């Protein structure tokens, strides 16, 4: 058993080849992300992601940010388990009626200073769900929003772009 375990550990040289970021603008973006977060947040930005009724595409893109290709942890960005540990609330979804209270409670549990980012087209104004009885047409109707990241869903690159710009105070 131990032999087999050791074998597994040391055999990991034959790793999967990761799809590399070859695009120059994407590379520049990642360098900028590092610089901004170092400067503004002292090398650490903690995000609490809240799904307030999204279709889950935004969630999967947030998860993709932690895959070996984007690996945002290397910039000090991380997703945390509790709002009490968070600098940023990243809210997705049009805020379904049943999630209003949970979102408010999560917001209240986040220590100030805090930023709220509305992520995705439906978080902005309800998107395709706008007008439905079961949604509230956007995060700003429930909690104050500091910045928006658009896209349905936003790509991992545009998520990084958006987070960097909002954190640096470049967009309101």
């Amino acid at each position, binding site marked *: 058993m131990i032999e087999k*375990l050791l074998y597994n550990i040391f055999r990991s040289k034959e790793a999967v080849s990761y799809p590399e970021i070859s695009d120059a603008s994407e590379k520049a973006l990642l360098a900028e992300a590092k610089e901004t977060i170092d400067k503004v947040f002292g090398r650490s930005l903690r995000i609490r992601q809240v799904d307030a009724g999204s279709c889950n595409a935004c969630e999967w893109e947030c998860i993709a940010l932690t895959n070996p290709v984007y690996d945002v942890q290397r910039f000090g960005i991380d997703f945390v388990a509790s709002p009490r540990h968070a600098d940023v609330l990243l809210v997705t979804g049009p805020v379904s009626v049943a999630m209003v209270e949970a979102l408010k409670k999560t917001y209240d549990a986040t220590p100030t200073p805090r930023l709220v980012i509305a992520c995705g087209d439906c978080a902005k104004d309800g*998107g395709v769900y706008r007008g439905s009885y079961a949604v509230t047409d956007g995060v700003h109707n429930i909690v104050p929003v500091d910045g928006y990241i658009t896209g349905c869903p936003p790509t991992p690159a545009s998520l990084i772009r958006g987070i960097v710009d909002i954190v640096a105070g470049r967009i309101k």
Partner: protein
Amino acid sequence: MHPANETYKMVSEDELVGKAAALMKGRAILRTMFACDERELDGTLKLYAVFSVHGEDRFETLVQDVKDYGEGPTFMSITHAVPAAHWYEREIKDMFGITPDGHPDTRGLVLHGMYPEVARPLMRDRSHEELRRLIDLTREDPYKYMEVKGEGVYEIPVGPVHAGIIEPGHFRFSAVGETIYYLDPRLFYTHKGIEKQFETVGFLRGVALAERVSGCSSFSHGAAYCHAVERMAGISLPVKASVTRTLLIELERLYNHIGDIGNMCAGTGFAVGYAKGASIKETLMRLNERLTKSRYLRGVNTVGGVEADVLKHADDILLTLDRVKEEYKSFMEFLLSSISHIERLEGTGILSKSIAHSLGATGVAARGSGIGDDIRRAHPHLHYDRVVFETHTHAKGDVLARMMVRADEAGCSFSIIEALLETPYKGLLKTDPGQVSPRRQALGYVEGPRGSIFYWVKSGDKGEPLRVKVRSASYCNWPLLPFAASGNIVPDFPLVNKSFNLSYSGCDI
């Protein structure tokens, strides 16, 4: 009017239970059950129960006029004869105010406390504005969680906001020591009223909504919706569109299955495995983006065909998949030789075949418990009758079995895509959908990554949408989770949950 492989049988109130029980005895599968407000057509509320007949490409739908004897509309619950109907009937109560008489569980399902009982959102004369006025966020939730009593039993409430990047839902565990005795999941936090929205946007624009029922099954949902509308309107799909849809459904299955296998590693704390799975998935997402400008394959489906000529990228697809196949092979070898990981999966979260069968499990969850239901085979559609593939089942019903079903199916998807791209296809990408005739109805279906997806559509007197019923795979499989979780230790729950990897949004609709 309806397609040739569907039969609609009017039954009386007293006949429904008996007819449904007889169908079950003949090994039919309940695909969906719903109500439809047809008062504007013939003054009735109707109840539909759609079954797949065993061994035939045929759907038998039982239809009943709902009666009201002065105390509100009711029907005889079929849940005792067809356990798979239990959620559908509670949903019908919430959405139409029709009471399933004799249902063992009288709690609400879809609508939480803020909706008053009179809301009945799917009644045709209820507008979105009216409903918004009826919703009261301060109203107490009457929902009672199932309580387990006894020495040493304690409750662990989790959610709706979870620790990870996951969709919202509440889990109430009743545990004894470390062992889960009972789990009561409370879902529908992401209910967005999509079925009602379908009625207002029109059949053609409904595709964008269908694509946003569940993000990681965007394409399958879009395809199933289009399939339903096309069957209803009698549109025959151009070959190229049919091939493109089949191909993209398999690509969607591939990125989900490989990603899910990787995610299960996160459930055992096996970081290397998780990273490898995530990396292969990213390669596939980037292929999706090159092919369709969307990582989630959105915007391709349209009623009558497809918008993008994906097949012209055949070289890119084959080249990328060749590489992915190699990586995937070494990834699986790596996982299967990692004893510490595999040991955690073996014997964990067992879903018995009998429970899976009686509650109407679908997709990976069913096939991991030895049920070979695959609608690509049972009800051939698109190009599935022209490619050779196998339906893989594993009998043990544990987390490992569900992983192996995914592994085998991913292998299958590679070969289906390769077979599709062997010959070039000529012709149009789409046909003009034209006008939908009034009073028509049809089912549409696709075997998505998590299992079968059904849409049922009906047009009104002007050919407008009267009802669009969405039945996602996750809706069938969520009620299975408590059975698979019972008897396991609480720390294994995330792993069991990941092995099903159900969509919350796809269930809550």
